[in-house]
């Protein structure tokens, strides 16, 4: 069988080894692997397992692999990291084709991007893995490609995937050059001490400038120009060199077959019928179908009903040996039991658990409501099912007088939110209203009796809902979440980009020319300023050339206020929002205008006001109707007129009565919606 090494598991193993015997193995885990393989060759002479892989592109393929054929020294675990659109998925397709995993029919379109949203948007959302077999100079190698998500929001997944690798292909478009996310990804791999193979893609295009881009890589990352591979994933040029580099430059994982089982769970998906499908890296020992395994995290024991590799679909192999990467199905019907970062061992043979992952923390929140309340139940089940496979989404129940029953969801970032919504719509056919996103604020409370009574002993609270925003009189200071933004732009747009950042309350950090024309800017910005339209505006002011990436960067004190919206003098709580004091007037005006445009003229005047405290910052007035009566109504007109008026009355029923005025749902949506 193909022996699959979870790249991440191997990495983890390397760290573990370091811990055990610093000096001897640190930095050279592959030597250790080679050593044990030589000593324990028999471990790999197991009976052959045959398996059929039938799901692959409707092509029946009989694969016969003995996982024991692959000693650790013949295993390479790697990822491809790249900026969006630099050709990561296309390169993955080519590698899978050449290794014979998928047919060469030419219809392979981003095989590892299994979600509709991934193919449509050209991004990878969910990490996927696939094993490849490649014979180099007479030796058969097992290569495990661990695809990574291609966006900043999914950095946590990237680092998870990298934890199972010993090397990465840093893929850069030879036309576009280094982009913001190339930088972010490089540092992720660099900090993880992985070998980095720079690969310049799309050299077949007319405007490709591989030399220029190679020198950018040298300037920025100290990667030697001559080490850059030059390929075209589309045409297949240079792909063999990629294989060669992987085999020569990426070290094999550090694993021991003699130690007791230590399996590291680095990802999981959920199958309706089989429960959690755990992606594991076998750090030490081996795992077989029928084994019992125990979670180091919960102490629970499970029966392993299936073990296999991803090829790229699941292929059962019966066993996985040390250093390999694959999946395990073990009757974990609650996704929480497949806890990412958990370590499994055989019962009664505990091993030191791997350091887990920090749970990804949602930074962007939005309300989500069914357009029609009758769809509440089906939307709930759709959200349940989606969050099964994406544990980074936080879910809490919310309700709004205007929008009805719904949820407040927390996402890692804007794209994450978009992708989630798109999946809801595409995969579950759900019609949802998504409210304008907000960020979590914090308030440092004064030490008063009242605060103690209301908030307990804590002196800092997190505010996710403007309705719960504490008054300034009870607060020492408010804090808002910050990000560190990396922007790479051609220098002709630099003025506009800087102005945009200034408008967004930026703090300048770095300004570097990465070549003659292009500048890397680093700014510290409030997250709140970035979540609404920053990315779109950046793209439009730079004619699409600027790229942007960010990472969370703590909290900062900020002058925050609660902006209230009043209709005929009454506060409409659900329209309240927390804003920076400097932005209050602008936001208030904007909301008033939207309400003005959507609240119909009616019998009575409607005064729309935006206030902070007792101060009115903006006002619009919807004048009352001067005349509303159809001109003619005799015998033959009555039925038709009645129909119209009943419709009008029905429409009013769907509106919300606030005092003597009727506010249509659309008015709320126009303010609350993105």
């Amino acid at each position, binding site marked *: 069988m193909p022996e699959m090494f979870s790249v991440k598991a191997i990495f983890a193993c390397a760290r573990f080894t370091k811990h055990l015997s610093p000096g001897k193995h640190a930095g050279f885990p592959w030597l250790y692997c080679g050593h044990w393989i030589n000593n324990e060759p028999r471990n790999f002479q197991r009976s052959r397992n045959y398996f059929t892989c039938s799901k692959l592109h409707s092509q029946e393929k009989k694969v016969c692999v003995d996982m024991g054929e692959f000693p650790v020294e013949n295993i390479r675990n790697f990822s491809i990291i790249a900026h969006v659109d630099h050709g990561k998925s296309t390169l993955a397709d080519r590698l899978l084709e050449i290794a014979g995993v998928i047919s060469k029919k030419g219809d392979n379109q981003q095989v590892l991007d299994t979600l509709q949203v991934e193919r449509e948007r050209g991004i990878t959302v969910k990490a996927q893995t696939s094993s490849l077999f490649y014979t180099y100079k007479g030796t058969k190698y097992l290569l495990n490609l661990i695809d990574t998500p291609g966006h900043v929001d999914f950095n946590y997944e990237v680092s998870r995937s990298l934890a199972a690798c010993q090397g990465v292909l840093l893929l850069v478009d030879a036309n576009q050059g280094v982009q913001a996310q190339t930088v972010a990804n490089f540092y992720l791999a660099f900090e993880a001490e992985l070998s980095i193979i720079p690969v310049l893609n799309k050299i077949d295009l007319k405007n490709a400038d591989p030399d220029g881009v190679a020198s950018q890589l040298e300037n920025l990352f100290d990667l030697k120009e001559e080490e850059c591979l030059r390929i075209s994933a589309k045409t297949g040029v240079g792909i063999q060199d990629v294989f060669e580099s992987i085999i020569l430059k990426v070290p094999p994982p550090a694993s021991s077959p003699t130690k007791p089982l230590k399996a590291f769970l680095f990802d999981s998906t959920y199958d309706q019928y089989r429960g959690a499908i755990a992606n594991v890296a076998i750090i030490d020992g081996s795992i077989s179908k029928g084994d019992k395994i125990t979670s180091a995290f919960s102490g629970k024991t499970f029966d392993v009903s299936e073990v296999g590799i991803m090829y790229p679909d699941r292929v059962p192999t019966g066993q996985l040996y040390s250093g390999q990467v694959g999946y395990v199905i073990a009757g974990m019907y609650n996704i929480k039991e497949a806890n990412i970062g958990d370590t499994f061992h055989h019962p009664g043979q505990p091993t030191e658990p791997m350091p887990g992952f920090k749970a990804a923390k949602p930074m962007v929140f939005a309300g989500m409501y069914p357009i029609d309340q009758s769809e509440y139940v089906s939307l709930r089940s759709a959200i349940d099912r989606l969050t099964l496979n994406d544990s980074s989404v936080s879910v809490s129940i919310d309700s709004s007088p205007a929008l009805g029953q719904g949820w407040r969801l927390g996402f890692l970032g804007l794209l994450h939110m978009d992708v989630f919504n798109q999946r809801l719509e595409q995969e579950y056919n759900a019609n949802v209203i998504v409210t304008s996103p907000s960020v979590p604020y914090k308030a440092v409370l004064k030490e008063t009796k009242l605060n103690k009574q209301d908030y307990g002993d804590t002196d800092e609270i997190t505010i996710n809902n403007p309705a719960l925003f504490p008054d300034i009189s009870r607060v020492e200071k408010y804090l808002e979440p910050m990000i560190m933004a990396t922007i790479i732009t051609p220098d002709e747009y630099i003025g506009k980009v800087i102005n945009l950042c200034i408008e967004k309350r930026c703090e300048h950090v770095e300004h570097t020319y990465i070549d003659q024309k292009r500048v890397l800017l680093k700014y510290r910005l409030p997250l709140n300023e970035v979540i609404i339209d920053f990315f779109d505006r950046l793209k439009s002011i730079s004619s699409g050339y600027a790229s942007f990436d960010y990472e969370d960067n703590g909290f900062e004190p900020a002058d925050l206020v609660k902006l209230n919206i009043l209709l005929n003098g009454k506060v409409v709580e659900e329209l309240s929002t927390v804003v920076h004091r400097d932005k209050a007037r602008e936001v208030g005006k904007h909301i008033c205008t939207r309400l003005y445009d959507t609240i119909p003229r*009616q*019998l*009575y005047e409607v005064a729309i006001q935006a206030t902070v405290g007792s101060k009115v910052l903006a006002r619009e007035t919807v004048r009352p*109707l*001067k*005349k*509303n*009566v*159809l*001109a*003619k*109504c*005799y*015998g*033959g007109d*009555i*039925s038709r*007129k*009645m129909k119209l*008026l*009943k419709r*009008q*009355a029905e429409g*009013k*029923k769907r509106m919300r009565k606030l005092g*003597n005025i009727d506010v249509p749902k659309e008015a709320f949506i126009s303010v609350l919606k993105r």
Partner: protein
Amino acid sequence: MLSSMPIIIRNVCANYMKAELSILHSNFSSMHSDVVSEKYPSFVQEAVLYVHWPFCKRRCTYCNFNKYIESEEQNKEMTNCLVNELQTLLSISGIKKINSIFFGGGTPSLADPDMFERIINEVTKHVYMSSDAEISMEANPTALEAEKLVSFKSAGVNRISVGLQALDQRDLNILGRDHSVKESISVLHQAKRLFPGCTSIDLMFARPGQTTSSWVKELEEILKHADDHISLYQLTLERGTELFNWYQKGEMSVPESDVSAEMYKDAVCMLAEAGYDRYEVSNFARPGAQSQHNQAYWSGTQYIGIGPGAHGRFVPLNQHMYPDTSVQRVTDNHSMMKIDEKVSFKNGYLTYPPREARIQTLEPSPWMKEVIKYGHGTRRRVKQSTKEILQEIIMLGMRTKVGISSKVWSEYSNGVSLREIFYENELVKILESNELVELTDGYLRPTKSGLTVADSVTAELILVLDKYCQDK
């Protein structure tokens, strides 16, 4: 569907009708003021009659009414069919008394005066109609039709509504009218001589390109010629009309809603000064000159409509004597309040079926064919629930100065009084405090400003009624 009905049933139908008509006929000679039977409440035994003459010489650009270009040979047949339908519906309804007749269209002034005479005779032959009952017709102000005014009068017509529309030649052309300003003024004066105090003018405002000041001037001019009644209609762009298409293509614009509101307000003001009282949203009359017929619609009186596309609202007391041959029959069974189903011997009266909303077949030719073949041209019958009837009463009442009468309300509401539903309601109180409605012992009525926004007020009151029905 009709054609699939067995012949034998159709014959039965025709026989029933004859039998019933002869009974009615023999009884009627002795009936005068106390014509109504005591078996039923009087409001289900009386009605007003609408006669629809569907033909026009040409189609006006703003009109999507049911009307067709006249063809000579159809006229006679149309008259025969109208008479036939009238007999049928009088019989089915069990009506004992007709309070007024209105000939509308279309262009009824294109019809032969004989048509009017035959309809009026047919009515008086079967039911009681007072000798001074209002008998109105619409007339186009062309020279040709003016010549026939005398014959209309001899046929029995005693009130005329002249379709003046505008005193601006350019606008008349845009509207597609076939008369000139001069012609229509002269016809108006002729009509006034023949029907003094009973001549009405139809006017249209918010016309393409019209301004408030030109409208005020035009109205001043009209007041010099007007008799005691004026109907004022805001031009509404109806889908399917030429005017609508022009507007869609951007070839023409109409005054904005605030401007037309201004025009209306100015007109109400000027007409009031000239002694015309706004007794309904679009109708203005000097004292005693109100249209009896239209007031009957607005106060919830039963009406029978004959002719292609004509609507009716009445309790078909004798429907059980006829096989139901209407093509489409809808029974609405939302139960509302405690009322709704048949009322048995209520207040000592006999059971009577629910009131129906009826529509006759729309196109003239099929309508005539059906009348000839089956003796009637009713296309659709909808049993009205109590709630629906009350909704109509609200809508119509809020368009009139007198408002909703609690007496009329009680006739249909099965004992739930106007007061019980509305007088303590929060929404109504808000309407009242904003001076949009007035609540008196006998009436719930719109104020002057309430009348101008009658549709919005109606929507509120309908919601109040809905809520009441729901909570019961």
